[in-house]
């Protein structure tokens, strides 16, 4: 009984959905039945374009994320280890943190065109913030005793960075990644919904404007699955790379 409790909510909601769908009180447009959504989900994967749409969305999200990771970790570590860099960049990042970078999208369209580049640039910009902030926090909080011991034992600056600072910052960097990956998915899907002719966000809008709610919901499930799998991949990579610090805070 207790092992079943986690599934109870999901099962109850799905049952309520199916009852609402079959009751006939609402149009099939509002509540398509689970069978229809399931069929559209299966159909989605039989179409070869679908895989292309997934590929387009994934490359945009991961491209922007990878760029943000490379630049963000470098900046964050520099800020953490050098007070001058921190004094210069910290106000910039904390001041513009709550400003929705999405507002720059129209400017980016004029700068980089309406293709993938403007979307990748926006993903990069939005993902940069959590990664910079977390790696800054990590690099700043390196245990002083460890640094002193390393210097005392004659470690060069490069060796200290590689053997002490990077391992100490790594858990923070991964915490930043875990925030940034869902952000990358959000931004890609939004930009594809707003202006695009490809990608999963576009498929959602297209299905909606052709009043195929069942198809739209099937694509929503695909996007949800992708978001879940990417998050899972980050957690797996984290546990592999930072094997010395196991966290039980990861629920799923």
């Amino acid at each position: 009984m207790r092992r079943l409790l986690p599934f109870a909510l999901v099962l109850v909601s799905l049952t309520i959905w199916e009852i609402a769908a079959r009751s006939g009180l609402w149009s099939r447009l509002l509540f398509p039945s689970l069978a229809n959504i399931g069929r559209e989900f299966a159909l989605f994967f039989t179409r070869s374009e679908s895989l292309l749409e997934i590929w387009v969305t994934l490359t945009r999200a991961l491209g922007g994320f990878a760029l943000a990771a490379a630049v963000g970790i470098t900046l964050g570590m520099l800020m953490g280890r050098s007070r001058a860099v921190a004094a210069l960049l910290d106000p910039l990042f904390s001041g513009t943190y709550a400003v929705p970078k999405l507002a720059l999208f129209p400017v980016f369209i004029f700068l980089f065109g309406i293709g993938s580049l403007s979307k990748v640039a926006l993903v990069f910009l939005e993902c940069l913030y959590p990664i910079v902030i977390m790696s800054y926090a990590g690099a700043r909080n390196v245990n002083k005793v460890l640094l002193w011991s390393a210097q005392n034992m004659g470690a060069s600056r490069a060796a200290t960075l590689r053997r002490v600072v990077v391992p100490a910052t790594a858990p923070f960097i991964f915490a930043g990644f875990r925030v940034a990956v869902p952000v990358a998915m959000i931004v890609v899907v939004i930009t594809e919904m707003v202006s695009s002719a490809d990608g999963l966000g576009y498929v959602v809008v297209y299905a909606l404007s052709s009043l195929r709610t069942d198809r739209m919901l099937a694509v929503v499930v695909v996007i949800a699955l992708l978001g879940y799998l990417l998050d899972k991949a980050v957690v797996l990579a984290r546990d592999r790379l930072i094997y010395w610090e196991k966290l039980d805070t990861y629920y799923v």
Partner: protein
Amino acid sequence: MTATVRHLAQAGALLALLIVWQLAALAGLPDFILSPFQIARHFIEALGTAELYQHVWASLARALPGFAIGSFAGAMLGLAAGVARWFDRLFSPAVFLTYPVPKIVMLPIFMLWFGIGDLSKVLIIALACFYPVFINAYYGVRQTRTILVWSALNMGASRSEIFRRVVLPSAMPMIFASLRVAFALSFIVMFAAEMINARTGLGYLIRIAENSLRFDLMYVALVTIAILGYTGDRLVRLAHRRMLSWQEQPA
């Protein structure tokens, strides 16, 4: 480095950036990049029109209720899941499972269910704000040091007293940290929802400006949203410092 020197250096860097930008504009930039002076002039002009305030009001009337509803529900349910084990087992798996899903894809469905008016936008913002607050409230409770709970029990505190005097105060810092994230999220989702489907608001303004190549309007909307986001973030941090003055500020 003293604080004054640091502030001077920061102001200098900002000024240098603006001067380079202005000089580049004088040397000739593409049409869609205005110079800082032009942006400032258009912004001040727009401040004198009623139109800008209408859009600001429409945007805030979506973002703020959504933020309030989502954060409140997130904090309440997160606290409940942290305290009651049966509720944790029932509710938390669904939340953690759907956490990495981009909530904005639900907007079209919400539009079908709740209409294309403000209700669907407020609810999608609330949904997006719910997650970070729930998760932090949950872990905030779970991180309560057991020794504090034991001491309180030892001194004869009732269950409700323990919750009020021990568990809640120790969860508060994490809840406030998530409020900052939720606030930033509420603006992102508000903007996205307005760009996708709206007839008012700053997201709509930037979209029609883009479509009609009114670059002045585009930058006015951009500057306005930046100022609103910055001010809101400062307010959340101020509330944090006011309400949790006993908490040690990180160095």
